[in-house]
């Protein structure tokens, strides 16, 4: 792959969900286009942001890229291959290089398994580290990387706070050294003081591991902090795609401007944070 080739390429992607009516005689009465013909490229090493309100199609987009959903139309290219039709072994191979971090650290971790085995699971599935002792070592190293105490290997998710659980989710996602990390609202469920810890961790991991990241959020301030280029989604479409500087200094689309104007207090917080 030449360096100018994008790591991820999304072409004319469409996802329709059927709308069914009726209890006894369910019938299809139409479809809603959650994602409506979007296109973008993500280059190696960058953080690509997708921002939008609920129902904009941003999370559906994440799931389409990760092949957790099948698109109605369009193509997803990853690392030079079209992955939209992959099945079985081909898909498994792609998933190794593409990992996801989810919003809710409470429901995305299996409560019956220790965090050690949760983080180790991808290594087992992909037979990346067949030796038990070495696997434990690798997991403890990952836990250390994300700021967890490696001695807590045998603890269960409920013994951890929300921020720590999100660290477990990140450690698991990083276990196979993926090329692409898709983070879908990774800090929305966290308190502000913890949110900053997780955002810093993601940035540091990205820098140190040379990760490419698709970062999805409804929060324009968080997106600005994290992303190099940003797509603004509205009603399933990308209404604006621009570099960070461009988007925040000279937004072009009226909807982007509306979103920016709606952020509460952002300007005032800064104005006031100048010492008297």
């Amino acid at each position, binding site marked *: 792959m030449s360096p100018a080739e994008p790591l991820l390429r999304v072409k004319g992607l469409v996802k329709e969900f059927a709308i069914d009516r009726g209890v006894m005689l369910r019938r299809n009465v139409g479809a809603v286009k959650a994602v409506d013909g979007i296109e973008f490229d993500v280059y190696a090493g960058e953080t690509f942001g997708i921002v939008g*309100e*609920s129902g904009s199609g941003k999370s559906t987009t994440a799931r389409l890229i990760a092949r957790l959903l099948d698109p109605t139309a369009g193509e997803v290219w990853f690392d030079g291959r079209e992955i939209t039709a992959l099945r079985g072994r081909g898909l498994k191979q792609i998933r190794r290089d593409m990992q996801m971090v989810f919003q809710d650290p409470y429901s995305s971790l299996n409560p019956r398994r220790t965090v050690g085995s949760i983080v180790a699971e991808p290594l087992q599935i992909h037979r990346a580290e067949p030796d038990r002792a070495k696997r434990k070592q690798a997991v403890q190293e990952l836990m250390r990387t994300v700021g967890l105490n490696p001695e807590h290997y045998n603890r269960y998710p409920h013994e951890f*706070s929300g*921020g*720590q659980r999100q660290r477990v989710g990140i450690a698991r996602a990083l276990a196979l050294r993926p090329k692409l990390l898709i983070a879908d609202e990774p800090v929305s469920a966290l*308190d*502000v*003081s*913890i*949110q*900053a*810890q997780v*955002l*810093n961790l993601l*940035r*540091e991991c990205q820098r140190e591991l040379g990760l490419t990241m698709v970062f999805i959020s*409804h929060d*324009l*301030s*968080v997106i*600005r*902090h994290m992303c190099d280029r940003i797509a603004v989604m509205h009603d399933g479409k990308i209404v604006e795609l621009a570099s*960070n500087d461009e988007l*925040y200094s000279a937004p072009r689309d009226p909807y982007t401007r*509306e*979103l*920016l*104007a*709606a*952020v*509460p*207090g*952002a*300007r*005032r*917080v*800064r*104005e*006031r*944070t*100048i*010492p*008297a």
Partner: protein
Amino acid sequence: MSPPDHIVTTEAYQVSAATPVSPSSSPDPARPADAEPLLQVKDLRVSYATEDGAVRAVDGISYELGRGRTLGIVGESGSGKTVAALSVLGLTRAEGAEVGGCIEFEGRDLLALDERELRTVRGNEIAMVFQDPLSSLHPLYRVGAQIVEAIRAHQDMTKAKARARTIELLDLVGIPDPAKRVDAYPHEMSGGQRQRAMIAMALANDPKLLIADEPTTALDVTVQAQILALLSELQQERGMALVLVTHDLGVVADMADDIAVMYAGEIVESAPAERVFAAPEHPYTWGLLRSIPTLDGPREELLTPIPGSPPSPLAPPPGCRFHPRCPYAQPEHARTNPELLSTPGQPDHRVACLLEPETRRGLWRELA
């Protein structure tokens, strides 16, 4: 509804000559009656018995609110901010909580009222709006009927008149085609419309005080801006006081005259809003301000998170409750829990911190 606009809230904000804080509760005969605060909360303590022991959700907090003013109570989850506000309505009592202290509303101690007396205040003189309108509206009754019921619970009014009043209220809160929407069910409305309907219901009896607990947290950012603009418009028109409970510093920056920052069941800093942002004196407030990414701050640097996580309410740390996470903590801070005291030269600005005021101001100058 016009596009969200910060001008409305800016105006509301500039009226912020802070209400003088009177340390004594005895009415001063030289002052007019309405200089007395509308709401005075003194040494409020709320604790719940759990299997693992007593949880002190709120542990000795005091605050007050003048007529027509807005107090923002800010804190993270578990800080006690919701309990601090809902106790005013006697809602924590129903949950079997033990409540101590004093909550004076227009000179009456609400904690001394029985449930029947309290019902004449709740929904009438004091109304509330919650985070999730879907769970606060009854799903099987038409929205209009629920508002009619709220009106008739406190006013002697015919059904027809109450219905006409309901349509007026829905119109006031910006619900389009109110004569028709009055018969809608909650599920037929969008999240923003439901929150507007909740606000209409809260306004039904022209309350003097509105308590809003995370009123916009479940909403999209553009809808949030509209609801906040609506709240401050209504407040200005009606001279209603507002207690706004939120985790979002941006929201209080836009809305509040005064801010109380809560941590682990206590108020750690309270001040007029502009001082909280320009000259905060508590290390926890600094931590909050520095950990949020902004729309125009520096982008390349890492954020400055607050290390660690909030303490368990079952076992708050001894001494200053923030000391385990405070970068400036001294050994003796683990022994003494600081009182909320006025900072020198600023009677309205109170801080619960064991550092010397001069030290605190110097530290903030370095950080900011």
